[in-house]
């Protein structure tokens, strides 16, 4: 038994040695992609926007002039009569319908928005990737039984994909009740099938490639093939999708808020909630909605630009 | 008088932010009616770009074309785009390398033929279909009526190339350009396709410009041969002359690098060293010099002129040509 294991280890090491050539070519592939990414104007704009957003999200709550719940009004806001105060010194973005400082809430909201985006993306990424890896590994190396497992899992993701994302999120929110966590989970759940499909598809492509065949021929253990050969080479589309998902997550969260399923805590002013609250007064005081809306659009645009630029940089068809 | 007379044709690719790259650098040759002329060279020598330039199929942007290409008394390179469109497919037609990718996968073969007949011969409906079936029959496709309704993926490789040839000859063009028509095919099919081309040329008196890297094809088909290197003709001769007395060191090397059955056992192959990337600009001297066994300092003093060092009509662009009588000479 031990001799057999030793032999297997030896073979694995041999294969790893062989793989070094693959790895170096892979590395130069990444270097090439990085070079193209740096040359891309789209990526540069995206990165600058994201950096600005992250900085605001980090320092926003400290530089906010007022607490997000503080009513700083001077008896001059009457939402029922459509009377608002616009920009003025001390309240750069004006006051909202409850007389709170919109600028402060916007700054604090940036952090919440980033949080919602990142956490829900991670939920989708982690769960989706797990499902995808299982499915992909089963399909490439599991033989006939594995393929059956793969089919079942994929049917399941098909069902999830067929539902309008918003409805899926609403269903989750209905079970969990209203909170910030709910929004994150609901938006994250929508991303699960996307990541699962993507990683599986990408693993299937890699699983059919010559170097995996070589690894199989060398008798490498299956788990090792998946972990050291297939998976690392399947990740680039997932990274692209993760970047794009940050944009969708922020937009979806805003839509959930609009449907009244957003985070109800007034001390945590997420941009989606601010927008949902402000839209009721849009005809009288559009700017109140425009600030969070512009925040959402610009941020989503930043992530989309970077994601698209990464996709282009990694696309072998465009290389040359 | 030649049907097509190409004079100092040059094609330069210009991309923003990159150095211009010269694909064709002053190529000249003539093709007479009923004549088969070969353009030979390794990949990257500019032979395909030459054919696309003659057909007007290069993109309008990012390409600079110079020189003249007079076809039937008119310069192809300066005529109006609409007139060129009229000539293309009717008087000057082309056969491409990869028959599968060169056929539209979602359009039946029949339509891909009748559309030419509609465009250039004004045929319609049943008449066009009959003519298309006749064309398929002529290029040796059995059961043409059925094949007309089929799609490219339903045909075999050889049949696809026959269908492409049928399209090219649909309007009885005065000249055909064939760009590596046999490269993507099995050897047995290659011979059949070459036979078919030969037959069509003989019967119709069509001029044929044959673009290939395969010296076997040249030997079997061409009357005149132009050997291209790095976008320029280095040797132009009749087939017999070229194969018997290859005079430019490159042509000499090309013929020498073919494995021969009648060579003594154990004799090593003699490949040309390096690749076409090891070259200098023609403006500075002979582009082949870095790979050449015979090069001297003289090779690096500007583009060598075309001369006829051996026989009239056998043009060579070399200052140190391989001449048959100088067997005794020992190169340094």
């Amino acid at each position, binding site marked *: 038994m031990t001799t057999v294991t030793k032999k297997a280890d030896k073979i694995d090491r041999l294969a790893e040695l062989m793989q070094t050539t693959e790895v170096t070519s892979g590395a130069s592939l990444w270097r090439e992609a990085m070079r193209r990414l740096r040359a891309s104007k789209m990526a540069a704009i995206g990165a600058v926007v994201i950096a600005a957003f992250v900085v605001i999200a980090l320092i926003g709550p400290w530089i906010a002039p007022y607490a997000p719940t503080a009513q700083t009004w001077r008896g001059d806001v009457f939402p029922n009569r459509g009377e608002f105060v616009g920009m003025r010194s001390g309240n750069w973005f004006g006051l909202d319908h409850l007389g709170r400082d919109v600028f402060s809430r916007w700054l604090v909201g940036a952090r919440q928005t980033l949080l919602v985006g990142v956490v829900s993306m991670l939920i989708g990424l982690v769960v989706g990737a797990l499902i995808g890896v299982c499915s992909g590994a089963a399909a490439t190396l599991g033989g006939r039984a594995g393929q059956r497992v793969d089919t079942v899992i994929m049917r399941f993701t098909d069902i999830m994909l067929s539902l309008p994302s918003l409805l899926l999120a609403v269903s989750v929110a209905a079970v969990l009740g209203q909170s910030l966590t709910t929004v994150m989970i609901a938006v994250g759940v929508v991303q699960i099938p996307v990541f699962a499909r993507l990683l599986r598809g990408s693993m299937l492509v890699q699983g059919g490639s010559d170097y995996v065949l070589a690894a199989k021929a060398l008798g490498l253990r299956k788990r090792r093939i998946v972990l050291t050969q297939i998976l690392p080479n399947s990740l680039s589309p997932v990274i692209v999708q993760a970047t794009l998902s940050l944009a969708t997550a922020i937009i979806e969260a805003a839509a959930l808020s609009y449907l009244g399923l957003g985070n109800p805590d007034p001390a945590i002013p997420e941009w989606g909630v601010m927008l949902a609250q402000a839209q009721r007064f849009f005809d009288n005081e559009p700017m109140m909605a425009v600030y969070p809306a512009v925040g959402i659009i610009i941020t989503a645009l930043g992530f989309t630009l970077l994601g698209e630029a990464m996709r282009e940089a990694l696309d072998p068809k465009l290389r040359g | 008088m030649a049907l097509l007379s190409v004079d100092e044709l040059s094609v330069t690719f210009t991309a923003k932010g990159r150095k211009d790259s010269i694909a064709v650098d002053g190529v000249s040759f003539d093709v007479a009616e009923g004549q088969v002329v070969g353009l030979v060279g390794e990949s990257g020598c500019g032979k395909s770009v030459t054919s696309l330039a003659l057909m007007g199929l290069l993109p309008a942007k990012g390409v600079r074309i110079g020189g003249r290409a007079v076809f039937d008394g008119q310069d192809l390179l300066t005529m109006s785009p609409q007139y060129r469109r009229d000539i293309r497919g009717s008087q000057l037609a082309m056969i491409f390398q990869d028959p599968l990718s060169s056929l539209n*996968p979602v359009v039946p073969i029949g339509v891909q033929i009748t559309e030419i007949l509609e465009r250039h011969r004004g045929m319609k409906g049943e008449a066009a279909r009959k003519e298309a079936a006749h064309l398929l029959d002529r290029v040796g496709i059995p059961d043409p009526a059925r094949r007309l309704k089929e799609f490219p993926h339903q045909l075999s490789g050889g049949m696809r190339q026959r269908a492409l040839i049928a399209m090219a000859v649909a309007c009885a063009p005065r000249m055909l350009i064939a760009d590596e028509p046999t490269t993507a095919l099995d050897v047995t099919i290659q011979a059949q396709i070459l036979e078919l081309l030969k037959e069509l040329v003989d019967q119709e008196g069509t001029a044929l410009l044959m673009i290939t890297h395969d010296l076997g094809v040249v030997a079997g088909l061409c009357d005149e041969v132009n050997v291209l290197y790095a976008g320029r003709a280095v040797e132009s001769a009749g087939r017999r002359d070229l194969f018997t007395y290859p005079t430019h060191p490159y042509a000499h090397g090309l013929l020498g690098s073919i494995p021969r059955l009648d060579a003594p056992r154990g004799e090593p192959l003699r490949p040309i060293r390096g690749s076409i990337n090891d070259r200098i600009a023609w403006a500075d001297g002979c582009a082949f010099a870095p790979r050449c066994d015979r090069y001297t300092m003289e090779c690096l003093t500007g583009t060598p002129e075309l001369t006829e060092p051996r026989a009239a009509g056998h043009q060579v662009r070399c200052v140190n040509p391989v001449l048959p009588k100088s067997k005794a000479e020992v190169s340094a």
Partner: protein
Amino acid sequence: MLRLVVRRLLQLIPTLLGLSVLLFLWLDRLPGGPASAILGEKATEAEVARINRALGLDQPVYVQYWRFLKRIFELDLGTSTQTGQPVWDEFALKFPATVELSIAAILIAVVIGIPLGYLAAKRRGGWIDVASVSTSLVGICIPVFFLAILLRSVFSVQLGLFPASGRLTTGINATEVTGFAVLDGLLTGELDASWDAIWHLILPAVALASIPLAVIVRMTRASVLEVLGEDYVRTAESKGLEKRVVRGRHVLRNALLPVITAIGLLTGSLLSGAVLTESVFDFGGIGSFIRTAIDGRDYPVLVGFILFIAMVYVFINLLVDIAYSIIDPRVRVH
């Protein structure tokens, strides 16, 4: 062709079964369960127990599931807790408005998106290309409901160019035949009603079209770029064919294949968008209905809608597959 349809319908069965299991589990997990969903949150325990018995919720899970499944197959989706009407009847009543809006949105997206995507690809790097690609990126990033609010505020509230809500002006003479307002007007000869319905459709349809339009422009552009580099396009050019023929038969016929698939996959996001857009414009279709169902936790309506949507999605993708197999002979063979 028939084989394809039958096969796809058979594939539908496991999908719907799986979905029904998920939905059943979901209903089971709802806070308070169906009883409180029906009775509201202030129900007494005795009442809950009574309802549970009446609904058979005191029975084993598999029995409950079987009953649930049976009801689905009988198209009995239960009763809306809000309106008291059968869910199915509500859908039948409100679906035409949503279909009309969705079709209008897809039409806008296709009619503008495909030519724009083609032009962008054909003049790659030109101003049309840059403008359409950047606009479509922005289009994807604007929350649909915000765009709807913006359009409504600017074009109807401020400028008064379009009606701000509803499907028809109240008081206009419109006879209902099919439930599709535009079509009804044409059928009954009440052309002013048709015109009025179109007038009401434009703003919500434009808002709803934003995402499909962006997707179609980008898909078409990418696809045309790829096809333009194909050998068969060069062959078509070498035949001297007219530009019109090269563009239609050789470029677009191939380039539109992936676009058609994309349109099928857009169904889900279109319906999400319809819920949001309809509620902004108070359009009165399924979207508005679902919006109030979400507010009122009207679970029978939500469950029914999810099942309904799954069927619509599968049906539309079946249509897409059929269209695809008509255009692409390579699929037909398998």
